[in-house]
């Protein structure tokens, strides 16, 4: 039991430590695809260090929500990291405290507070971005729900550890149509929730067109650092859910010894790197959708997930 708590802590530390690295690698890869040189992959760490040492300026007209939100945004992905398989494919200490739906709600909690905080100041661009984020959020909800329902049809449970086993025992299950279609649907979801192209441009500076970025427009210093880090961790956690639960549990530690868990770290990071390659190719080849076309994009994701559900029911 003590060992499990230790592994859980190591999981959380891994998420905290490597989330900025994932973000740095993504920007570097995107620049490389465009034949540019790009910033160093450790740049996000330097940014965070710089931000922690800067003064924080807070508007007088904002309430406790504005001050509280960075902590919430920082902590919610950590909670979710306790629940999902990051390094191991057997359940750890906190694993049964919440399933995937619970994890989804916890992440939504962070997003909820971020939205409120964006409205809290008097900056006009905040509410604009916040309302758009909510629109994307509620359009993505049905997809989330259907994905989880289908997963529970297939695996009989929504606890991530139990689900991930189903796709590889036996090996033929990997090619089940519900599996492939679920992967497609969840990929589209990650693009939407993580604010990537084609839904939103993460490197844009034009406030009128921002969706996700506008939530942290007003923050500075430590609050900004926490918001940034929290955002990166959220994306990292979503990737872990996608890769470790929905795609395959390869690379995860199977034995309950420390060395196996430590060995899993580079393997999982390698998996994440491959996914980032795919992500960067998708981002570089598509263009950002017009705002009201986002509903069509998420409609397509919805259809894909329902198709996954239908084919699961059709299989004899």
């Amino acid at each position: 039991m003590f060992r499990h708590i230790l592994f859980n802590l190591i999981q959380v530390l891994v998420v905290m430590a490597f989330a900025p690295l994932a973000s740095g690698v993504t920007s570097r890869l995107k620049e490389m695809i465009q034949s540019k040189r790009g910033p160093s992959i450790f740049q996000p760490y330097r940014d965070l260090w710089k931000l922690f040492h800067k003064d924080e300026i807070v508007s007088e007209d904002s309430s406790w929500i504005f001050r509280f939100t960075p902590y919430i945004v920082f902590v919610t992905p950590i909670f979710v990291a306790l629940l999902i398989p990051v390094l191991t494919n057997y359940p750890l200490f906190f694993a049964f405290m919440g399933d995937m739906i619970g994890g989804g709600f916890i992440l939504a909690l962070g997003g909820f507070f971020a939205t409120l905080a964006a409205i809290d100041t008097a900056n006009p661009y905040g509410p604009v971005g916040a309302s758009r984020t909510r629109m994307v959020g509620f359009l993505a909800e049905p997809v989330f729900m259907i994905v989880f329902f289908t997963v529970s049809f297939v695996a009989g449970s929504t606890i991530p550890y139990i689900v991930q086993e189903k796709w590889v025992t036996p090996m033929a299950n990997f090619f089940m149509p519900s599996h492939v279609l679920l992967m497609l649907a969840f990929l589209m979801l990650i693009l939407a929730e993580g604010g990537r192209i084609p839904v939103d441009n993460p490197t844009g500076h034009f406030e009128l067109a921002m969706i996700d970025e506008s939530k942290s427009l007003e923050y500075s210093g430590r609050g900004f650092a926490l918001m940034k880090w929290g955002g990166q961790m959220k994306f990292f956690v979503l990737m872990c859910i996608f890769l470790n639960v929905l795609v395959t549990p390869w690379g995860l530690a199977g034995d309950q010894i420390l060395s196996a868990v430590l060995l899993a770290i580079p393997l999982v990071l390698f998996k994440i790197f491959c996914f980032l390659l795919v992500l960067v190719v998708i981002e570089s080849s598509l263009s950002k959708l017009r705002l009201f076309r986002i509903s069509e994009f998420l409609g397509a994701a919805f259809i894909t997930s329902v198709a996954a559900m239908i084919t699961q029911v059709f299989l004899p």
Partner: protein
Amino acid sequence: MSDTTNQLLDNLNALATGLFLLTAFGIVAMRQARGVLNLFILQSLLLAASAALLGFRHHSEHLYGVALVNLISKPIIVPWLLRKTASAEIYTRREVDQVLNIPTALLIALGLAILSYFLGQPLLNAVAPEFRGPNVPIGIAGLLIGAFTLSVRREALPLLIGLLVMENGAFLAGISISRNLPLLVELAIATDGLIIVFISGVLIRAVQKHVGTTAVGELSNLKEATVEPVEKEGTK
């Protein structure tokens, strides 16, 4: 063959049919005409894949022939024929304003897919167990979604592709329940598809030349209630 290979083949076939259904949805929703054509080519490839997988699973060389015929006629010959007979403008069209907006059309298509599951169940229950599988319900879905595409799209190329999707759907259902049809018949059905494309292409070119639009679904002059007299010199 061993049980695991059988299961793997069944799953791969189910995957092919699942992606077939997805392409049918895409054809209803896609705005660009060229995108619709590409989705149709993908769908025909999936049909051929399903035929080949079923052939391998049930040791029927006849189905390999079907797969080969589909592989050659639809992805290769159909686009070539279209390029030769129809005017080039149909490839460049996009439907900017639709009869039904895209999310609604997708939802109706989804409803049709679920309906086809219920329609297909009694049929599946009546045939022997080795014929059962996802092909029949998804084939019926293809049929219904193709018919639905025909009613909501107005541009020439998506209308034509909707017709061909109906045939694809009927075929997909057919390769699982009527496996032993003489190969000659399957060949003739495939040739038939090509003739459809040829004639439709000629008609579309004529419409483009004489009426001046590729939105053939919008032509609606012939009704009883027209007040103005029908002009006899209507050619341009």
